[in-house]
């Protein structure tokens, strides 16, 4: 009789266990403490949106500073540079100052976007959630190719002259390189 009862209990446990929802099984399994899926995607989306909102504000502030700031010619030393070299130097240093002004936010945005898209794909099998105009290309790379072309031109300038330019505090804040060169008369 005892053996029959044991078998019946075991069968019941098996049937209930098999029929129970996945979450219930996992709750009984001490090695799996949680099973969020869509919640993680939603949290990743929320984090991405927060970073993007902060990034937009920072880019706006730094960009406005860049547009309006003209460096007075007297701040810039007389250096043996051609007009073209001055142009490349001002262009590169302005781009670098803008990047420094925005700081790590751009990297944070790329990371948050990539995580969100990865988690979304893990959970839903695809990337269908609308993120407006934000995409990886915009956040990471779009116009950077041209900026690097300018940097390569800048690197042709004598390292000592570059060092002198890079030590000027005004050139480390966002500034308008076109209007600055206009002010220099070059």
């Amino acid at each position, binding site marked *: 009789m005892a053996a029959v009862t044991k078998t019946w209990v075991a069968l019941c446990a098996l049937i209930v266990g098999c029929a129970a929802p996945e979450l219930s099984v996992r709750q009984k399994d001490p090695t799996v403490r949680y099973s969020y899926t869509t919640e993680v995607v939603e949290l990743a989306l929320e984090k991405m949106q927060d970073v993007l909102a902060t990034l*937009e*504000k920072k880019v706006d502030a730094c*960009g406005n500073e860049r547009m309006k700031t003209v460096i007075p010619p007297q701040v810039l030393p007389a250096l043996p540079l051609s007009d073209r070299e001055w142009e*490349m130097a001002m*262009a590169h240093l302005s781009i670098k100052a803008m990047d420094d002004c925005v700081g790590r936010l751009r990297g944070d945005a790329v990371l948050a976007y990539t995580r969100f898209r990865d988690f979304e794909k893990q959970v839903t099998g695809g990337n269908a959630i609308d993120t407006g*105009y934000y995409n990886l290309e*915009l956040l990471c790379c*779009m116009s950077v190719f*041209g900026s690097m072309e300018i940097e390569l031109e800048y690197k042709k300038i004598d390292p000592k002259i570059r060092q002198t330019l890079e030590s000027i505090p005004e050139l480390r804040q966002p500034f308008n390189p076109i209007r600055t060169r206009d002010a220099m008369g070059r």
Partner: protein
Amino acid sequence: MNCPEITDLTFSPSGEKAIGNIRRIQGLGKGLTVLMGGSVLVKIFVGINGVGHPVGIVWKIGKSDWVLLSQAMVSVGPLLREQVQMYAFDEYHKQHTGKEREFWGR
């Protein structure tokens, strides 16, 4: 703000490529079209119904087109605005001369 009229403007292959890149910026076209309607700069940067391919066309850009663009650019998101500015900035520095340089320098 200095907004010059530019007449008889044609784009070099490099300028055409930059315009292609600007047109690829997702969300920009819709924003500019809503804010600027059929402005010549929308035809250049967005293209309307296939019209406005930059190659081989001689463009005339009036002072009011620049004013419209600057007003519209305030309304698009800072990240989109930055991308357009950077493409224009890079093009300006590629040693184009004359009218194309003036165009990208605006």
